[in-house]
């Protein structure tokens, strides 16, 4: 990422302008040409620095009110295989390996599960239990009770 990428990122991370030529609008704001903006965005997309371009729905508004962080204790030597399988399930939004803290925290596989009700999430948990089978040495669900702070992950603009 160079200074130009940084400028494009800070100009677009809150969203694209809703005008007929959004990339030209960004270019004008930054004093560069729109071909450069498009090229840089395409390059960042190709490198995975941009995950995707599109709409980010508010899942609460779409009725997904039950959101659980599910945590699983699986063998370390199986985690890649199991993590890939878990991440491929349609109701899992984030799936990571994280460190254990024994004895109080034995879980090494984290998956965010989303449903319209806790019953729906419970049904999905059952699907995960079946998927992991004998490799699951235990799991827990941590439902969110309240958001205490949410400022989002943003890149700071440099002066």
């Amino acid at each position, binding site marked *: 990422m160079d200074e130009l990428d940084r400028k494009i990122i800070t100009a677009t991370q809150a969203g*694209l302008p809703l005008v*007929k030529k959004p990339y030209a609008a960004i270019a004008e704001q930054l004093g560069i040409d729109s071909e450069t903006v498009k090229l840089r965005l395409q390059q960042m997309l190709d490198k995975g620095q941009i995950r995707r371009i599109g*709409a980010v*729905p508010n*899942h609460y508004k*779409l009725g997904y009110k039950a959101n659980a962080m599910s945590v699983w204790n699986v063998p370390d030597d199986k985690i890649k295989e199991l993590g890939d399988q878990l991440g491929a399930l349609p109701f899992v939004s984030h799936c990571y390996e*994280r460190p254990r803290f024994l004895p109080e925290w034995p879980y090494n596989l984290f998956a965010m599960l989303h449903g319209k009700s806790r019953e729906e999430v419970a049904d999905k948990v059952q699907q995960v239990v079946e998927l992991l089978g004998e490799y699951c040495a235990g799991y827990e669900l941590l439902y969110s009770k309240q958001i205490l702070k949410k400022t989002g992950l943003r890149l700071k603009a440099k002066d």
Partner: protein
Amino acid sequence: MDETDRLLINSLQGNFPISDQPYLEVAQQLGISEDDLLSRLQTMLDNHTLTRFGPMYDIQKLGGSFSLCAIRVPVERFEEVTEIVNAFPEVAHNYERDHEFNMWYVLATESPEQIIQTNQAIAARTGLKVYNMPKIQEFFVGLHFQA
């Protein structure tokens, strides 16, 4: 939210074109006018059906450090500890969860050292053990929410 809005949400969660008139392209694919598309997107942003429309950056790939951290906060101290933790500008998100590990926050800093330093400061200020759980491997990030 009508059927067209649902169609928009379901079909626009990725692959927005990088072209001169991307909204026009998408509108033509969906069989609506460009102006209709723009006004529907504006309305859904205004009423928070959409949180954002644009590029979703993987900030970690752009540099910077992130970590998910947890604290077991005694219930009677929850408010006080929330205040201490939230006061750190490095704390980007903080959630209360229904568990003995009841506080989960995400640190976002410029370097890995600052993750450690911030957690040391939080542990010192709260007198509680901080569990630093940075991701070791990412298997999947995404999800198509069906409207």
